[in-house]
């Protein structure tokens, strides 16, 4: 079997998974007692005849399986419907906000992988040293810290008390930038605390993984062989051990994009960043079903793509995989 065949097979598996996800999301939404018309009109509930009209207009009077098929058909044509609250197109709302969420995720993920790998490898090599012990305890504390509370503490210290960083929004309001560099600098300054929050928690998480994977690999026979061949310790660690230790880490990172999104929701909400997470929280309270379903689908697709990338990376890194 070649790499190409493997990729095709992997892609085919995605299709039933995707359909199962659409079924779950649709069912979850329609398990709810009442329908969207109960929430429309806010404090003044709509009259029954008005509700009936809306139900007919949105197709809410159809049986659930029919509604699902209609929704799925639209979905496959790239139509996610219109918000019950604002009336704007869901796909437009999502595309306007998606870049900020992806930026935050990528920034946090890449930084934490880099830091965690470096710290984790050193800790594993210097097993039982003071450095290892303090890093491990530090990681355990970071891992136990609620991310939203960390965000609040960072705001308190760096924004409220020290005044070094702004507390919210992706850029300073009402400021005209003279150069693009100035604009970028301002943006990065606003992204600093949100990114720091995610990086702290994530580094702690990944550090534990890298360290334990590395410790396990270092006891293997092939490492002893490499050492007894007289290879330099650096070559043994970085070429032989690290490559194998990274395998579980790669898979895990791919599958945990959804988990990272959890952190992003909270951080976007606290720092008032207009990303997907903030939209999600806002619309959950208002029960804006089309927007929520659209968001869930888009995020599920992102997670599927990430796990696919992880599998490909795994296959590429691991020489033992024969694609079968």
């Amino acid at each position, binding site marked *: 079997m070649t790499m190409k065949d493997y990729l095709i097979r992997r892609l085919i598996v995605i299709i*039933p*998974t995707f359909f*199962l*996800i659409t079924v*779950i*999301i649709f069912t*979850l*939404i329609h*398990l*709810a*007692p*009442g329908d969207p018309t109960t929430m429309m009109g806010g404090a003044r509930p709509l009259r029954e005849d008005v509700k009936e009209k809306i139900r007919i207009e949105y197709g809410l009077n159809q049986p659930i399986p029919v509604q699902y098929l209609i929704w799925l058909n639209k979905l496959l044509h790239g139509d996610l419907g219109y918000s019950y609250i604002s009336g704007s197109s869901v796909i437009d709302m999502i595309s306007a906000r998606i870049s900020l969420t992806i930026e935050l995720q990528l920034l946090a993920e890449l930084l934490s992988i880099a830091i965690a790998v470096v710290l984790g490898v050193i800790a594993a090599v210097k097993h039982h040293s003071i450095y290892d012990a303090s890093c491990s*305890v530090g990681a*355990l*504390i970071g*891992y*136990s*810290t*609620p*991310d*939203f*509370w960390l965000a*609040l*503490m960072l*705001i*308190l210290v760096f924004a*409220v008390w020290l005044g070094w960083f702004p507390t919210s929004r992706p850029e300073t309001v009402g400021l005209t930038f003279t150069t693009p560099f100035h604009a970028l600098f301002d943006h990065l300054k606003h992204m600093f605390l949100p990114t720091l929050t995610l990086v702290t928690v994530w580094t702690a998480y990944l550090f*534990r*993984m890298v360290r*334990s994977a590395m410790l396990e690999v270092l006891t293997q026979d092939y490492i002893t062989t490499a050492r007894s061949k007289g290879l330099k310790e650096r070559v043994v660690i970085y070429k032989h051990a690290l490559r194998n230790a990274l395998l*579980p880490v790669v898979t*895990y990172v791919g*599958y945990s994009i*959804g*988990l990272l*999104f*959890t952190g992003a*929701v*909270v951080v976007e*909400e*606290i720092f008032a960043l207009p990303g997907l997470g903030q939209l*999600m*929280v806002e619309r*959950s*309270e208002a*029960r804006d079903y089309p927007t*929520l379903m659209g*968001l*869930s689908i888009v*995020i*599920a697709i992102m*997670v*599927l793509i990430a*796990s696919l990338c992880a599998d490909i990376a795994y296959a590429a890194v691991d020489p033992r995989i024969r694609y079968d």
Partner: protein
Amino acid sequence: MNSRLHTNSKKKNEKVHRPSRATRLFIVWRKLKKSKLAIAGFGIVLLMSLVALLSPIIAPYSPDSPSGSSRMPPSMEHIFGTDNLGRDMLTLVMYGARISVYVGIATVLIEIAIGLSIGMTAGYFGGIIDEILMRVADVVFTLPMLMMVLLAISMFEVRSINIIILVMAILEWPLMSRVVRSEYLSLREATYVEAARSMGASNLRIMVRHILPNILSVMIVLATMDIPWFILLEATITFLGFGDPMSSSWGVLLERGFPHMSTSWWIITFPGLALLITSLGFNLLGDGLRDALDVKVRE
């Protein structure tokens, strides 16, 4: 007749030593005691559970009525200060422990019930059943957790802690079922399972009476490690405004303190610290148990 007598006498001479349950517990405890971190974790968990149980007795003030003026900084009377309604923060944090400990344990129990039965079935029977169950587990695992929880919670008319618990457990079982499945997959080939089967034991009996006791230590470690995760998740959900506003869960306290954070730091600091310490305690204990019970769990 003769041979039976023979086996009996042989058994008597050998004196098969099987440690009692209490002794086995003691062995684990002795191993656990070697790690200072694990003992610290055990202490924290014990302390938090005691606070949760005894909060109506040991809390200095009432959690429902003001005991001072609004937003007083920490002092001798109010060690953690007061909130914007003048209630004592220490009291509120103590009552919050009740909710967090309850959430952690209740969610894990439901998660075990789901994860164990699905993982057990998939691993023991294998084949097409395994294929289907694990595909479903994969899909549920792919769903963005917090998003699904918010989605499900916003569906209900009432805001209640039990709904949050149920939703979290329903969405979080896949990882546990995967571990259980792989244990059953290998243990079903064990000789003692074959022996039990040859004696006519039913599938259910083999799964529950013969295999389950052998994966008990894995389950204990997994459960201990999942408790802090559920506690933090519940706090996150309630912080985002999806909790029961009448309860004084740590997440609700933080949500209410958020608007006042720039003027009164203590309102958001102490409930968060309590969260951090509790989750740290369970994580330390989980790590310690993993080493003491010699269980391999992917972090």
